[in-house]
């Protein structure tokens, strides 16, 4: 009992700290990729305390609910967007036998709970009483519906390969040659996951140059900060999932297992940031075409490949 409570506390700390680290990394990496310096003053050393300063600023701001908004839904929405990512973390293994809850259906649990998060942005979009927010909410819904399918198909390919839906079980069964074998599935999963997070280049729902900030337009202060936190927590969860499913989690030579997991997670988070700096935003029709005409067929091909290899070996 004590051990479970302790692991929940650790997960909460990870949930609060890792998104901040990734956010700070994004500031600095983006800046250097664009020949800037990024934050340099807060905390003296290369602006390491910038996000803490941002947090203090958010906490001081007035929490405004627009007069035309649907108050209750407007106020619940940030929590609906954030909490699923926290819940997902409890079934993700960091190291061998280091997982808070070893669910037999871990993979299904993760996919089901992550789908709820998008409801938060739809609720926010509708409840704000702002036409740009509604547009953003609708784009979120459309994006979720089209990218959920390749995400689930790619994930089920790994489950087929490992013969289990339990996340520690999948990592346990992983071998190095799964990297080339499941490569297509990994790419599809990562891209579809990025699209579910609405990260650039899939940020049509919050495209700031046309619909201001999409569902988050009317949010200020702590509630806006919660949306921001949920975006970065989403990056953490997606990186963890891709690591666990496709990159072999704690497997690796020399270093301890939990360090390997974290290294892979940070590598993937770096790729997420890199994507944001590199690619322009996809147009809505390009977005849908990518999902239905590229990712779904690719994930089906991966499923077929997995099945064939699984039967032959």
């Amino acid at each position: 009992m004590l051990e479970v409570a302790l692991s929940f506390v650790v997960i909460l700390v990870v949930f609060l700290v890792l998104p901040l680290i990734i956010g700070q990394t994004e500031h600095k990496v983006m800046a250097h990729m664009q020949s800037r310096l990024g934050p340099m003053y807060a905390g003296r050393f290369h602006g390491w305390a910038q996000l803490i300063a941002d947090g203090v600023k958010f906490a001081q701001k007035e929490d405004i609910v627009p007069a035309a908004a649907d108050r209750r839904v407007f106020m619940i929405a940030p929590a609906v967007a954030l909490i699923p990512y926290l819940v997902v973390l409890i079934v993700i293994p960091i190291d061998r036998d280091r997982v808070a809850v070893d669910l037999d259906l871990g993979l299904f649990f993760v996919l089901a709970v992550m789908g709820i998060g998008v409801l938060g942005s739809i609720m926010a979009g509708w409840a704000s009483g702002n036409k740009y927010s509604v547009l953003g909410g609708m784009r979120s819904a459309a994006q979720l519906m089209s990218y959920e399918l390749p995400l689930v198909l790619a994930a089920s390919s790994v489950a087929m390969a490992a013969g289990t839906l339990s996340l520690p079980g999948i990592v346990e069964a992983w071998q190095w040659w799964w990297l080339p074998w499941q490569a297509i599935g990994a790419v599809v999963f990562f891209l579809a996951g990025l699209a579910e997070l609405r990260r650039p280049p899939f940020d049509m729902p919050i495209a700031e140059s046309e619909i201001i900030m999409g569902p988050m337009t009317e949010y200020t202060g702590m509630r806006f900060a919660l949306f921001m936190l949920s975006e970065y927590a989403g990056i953490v969860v997606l990186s963890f999932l891709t690591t666990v499913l496709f990159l072999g989690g704690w497997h690796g030579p020399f270093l301890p297992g939990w360090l390997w997991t974290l290294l892979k997670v940070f590598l993937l988070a770096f790729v997420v940031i890199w994507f944001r700096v590199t690619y322009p935003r996809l147009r809505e029709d390009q977005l849908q075409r990518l999902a239905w005409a590229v990712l779904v067929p690719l994930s089906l091909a991966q499923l077929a490949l997995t099945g064939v290899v699984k039967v032959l070996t």
Partner: protein
Amino acid sequence: MTEAVPSYLSPTGQEIVFLLLGAVAVGSALLVVTTRQLVHAALWLVVCFGALAGGYLVLTAEFVAWVQVLIYVGAVVVLMLFGIMLTRAPIGRSADLDSGNRVVAAVVAVATAAILVTVVIDGFRTAYAPLTPGPGSARELGASVFATWVLPFEALSVLLLAALIGAIVLSRTDIPGGEPADPPDDLSRSTPPPDQTGGH
């Protein structure tokens, strides 16, 4: 299936949680049909589906529970919200949400519920099955679907495939054939809009 029935006067924790989840499900289902706000109805439906999934979990049907969340909360409700927001989604109460048939609808709903409850009570009486974790897991379920129930499963997948192809054919206007006498303009107008053909 039939074991000694423990007393109903000392319910276990599982039974209490199950009853509470049932109450939440029924309450939110009532709110879905009585609320005057269109989007709130869809959101109460999320609560209802969530309580149902919780009920499945308590009954150790884990796989069904997570499928319930993945498909119904994650996809069906999102699709509904998308449809509502695409057509009209006013904030605040809508005056025209009450149907003139609501008395008849209530009678039909109560009658259906009464029939279902009678059938279930009559069929099981005091049968008591202790809950053991395991039969609802993916391995057991997969084994029984692909061994015992493989024929119905395949028949259902063919049915779903037919429905899918039908939906595509109905929503596409550029497929030649159909009514040859009609000019293409009338053909495109006579097909129903795609959002009415999609089913699940």
